[in-house]
């Protein structure tokens, strides 16, 4: 995953209307969209609302001039755990339906139900919308802009500074991680190599983890000293250039928030569904 950070960063450094929006606007819109999606009651209406949301995201993605492949690749990397749970749903009954209709009998008394498939579909739709929002957010916003934005939105500066340092050293250790892997390759070590005993592989991985832990610990010590040299104390703060939202930031924010609220209302209350 740490290698991914370099690719994510690369897409965040592209230039487009979407990229140039203020990070605060993107953070607020993204989080509201996730909250709205999560809050949607379990019903088939989710397919409509989610569909609209996905369309919305797709058009933003088009505006960002990023390749759809980037999106699909990232999506594929995130899906497994959620998909696994969703897939199992089709064999299970759940409390959101009162009756279940069996559509397939499998051995060992396992059944597949219509309602369960529907429920799995609803979950999948919500899940994909939420994940897409995050992919969209992190692919179009530079990490440090996100941090600046978070700070201006009121995240405590301790956390902003800590997260900023973490992000900075994520890249430093990203390089370290690559070099360790290259050493493994040169020395013909593969944690999946069954010719080596499991105990031996586990031990080497454990030692590597220990080494990495020490490396980061010592990096932390040295960095702390370097920070002291620059006047760090517990009142220290990170420098953020104050910036006001431009008109198009406001336009984007208001339009997107309205969209997130109108769509569900129209679909649910407006009675598009029976």
């Amino acid at each position: 995953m740490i290698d991914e950070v370099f690719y994510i960063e690369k897409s965040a450094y592209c230039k487009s209307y979407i990229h140039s929006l203020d990070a605060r606007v993107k953070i607020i819109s993204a989080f509201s969209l996730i909250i709205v999606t999560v809050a949607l009651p379990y019903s088939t209406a989710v397919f409509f609302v989610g569909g609209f949301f996905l369309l919305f995201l797709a058009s933003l993605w088009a505006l960002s001039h990023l390749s759809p492949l980037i999106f699909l690749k990232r999506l594929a990397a995130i899906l497994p755990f959620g998909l696994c749970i969703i897939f199992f749903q089709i064999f299970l009954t759940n409390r959101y339906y009162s009756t279940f209709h069996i559509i397939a009998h499998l051995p060992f008394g396992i059944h597949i139900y219509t309602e369960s498939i529907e429920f799995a579909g609803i979950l999948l739709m919500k899940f994909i919308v939420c994940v897409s929002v995050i992919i969209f957010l992190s692919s179009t916003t530079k990490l440090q802009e996100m941090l600046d934005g978070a700070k201006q939105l009121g995240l405590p500066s301790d956390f902003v500074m800590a997260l900023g340092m973490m992000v900075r050293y994520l890249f430093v250790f990203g390089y370290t991680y690559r070099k360790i892997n290259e050493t493994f390759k040169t020395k013909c070590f593969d944690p999946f190599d069954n010719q080596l005993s499991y105990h031996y592989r586990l031990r080497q991985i454990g030692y590597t983890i220990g080494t990495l832990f020490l490396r980061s610990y010592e990096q932390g010590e040295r960095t702390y000293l370097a920070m002291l040299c620059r006047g760090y104390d517990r009142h220290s703060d990170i420098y953020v250039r104050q910036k006001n939202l431009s008109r198009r930031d406001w336009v984007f924010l208001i339009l997107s928030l309205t969209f997130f609220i109108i769509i569900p209302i129209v679909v649910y209350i407006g009675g598009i569904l029976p």
Partner: protein
Amino acid sequence: MHIPDAFLPLTHGLVYWIIALVFIVLALRWAKSEMSDEKVPLVAVLAAGIFTIQTLNMALPISIVPGGVSGHVVGAALAAIVLGSPYAAVFIMAMVLAVQAIIFGDGGITVMGANFINMGVLGGFFGFYTYRSLHNLINNQFASALIAGWVSLFIPAIACALELAIAGTFPLTIGLITMGVYHAIIGIIEGGATAFALSLITTARPDIMYHSTSIMKRKKRDAAILAGIIIALGIAIAAPFAASTYPDGLESAFYGIYGAKDFQSPVIEDTMAATAEQAVIEKTGNEFSWTAPFQDYQIPGFDKMGEVGAIVIGLLSIVLVGYGVTKMIARQK
């Protein structure tokens, strides 16, 4: 084990977030006050290190398919043990999970509180106290770390299954069994790697290792903590069976845990575990009385503002009690 968005209802997410925030504040305080030395930079850099550690993939000890499925280490136990405080793990995991959720989409935003309680709080506290009590009792660093690592992965997995079950997203029994078995297996990686990593750190930099010897050994207390952990583990392991025996076994399992809690209440991590569990108990009652909410097209929870409010107030008071106990114990040190 990273629960994605939409797998827990918003109200549940909120409740977990509130509990999580309390622990984050406590951890931040730890980082700023511990031994009058600022730990914020150290912990921030370590968080990047733990994140990197989590990317070292390793074959599972039991090969399910030829070629091997991979697992990796979470690192909460390791961080807590080396830095000598479960709050270290809480702080580090908070940052790691935040970055994973917001940048990588691994784990959700609305459910971040839950993920954080599982991997950071439960993982850190169980890992740390299992290690310390075992180490004080059997005086074998390697074995203690091995078991602590395993526990620090297994308990969160069970908690995760419970949370999904309460949310109605995944049935309790199957969830407990699949999550439990799977994580009991990768727990071997967590435990083994934690133990080897710790042995390397102890040989290379014994000075940074927190010395449990420097704190007065209190065998009785350690035995009590250990007993609590064993009971928690026992319940976690027995839960699927209990759950499958009784139709509404969830409740009974929880009251079981709740009962166990009285038995060794002065212990920090159980206080805190109880906090989460209590939350869950309260919710359980509500949850089961829910009718299928989509029938009347209402957003769940919004028609039950009163109930949600009660849950939140109840939780807050429990958290406050937990916090008080933690403080008192901290002052005794």
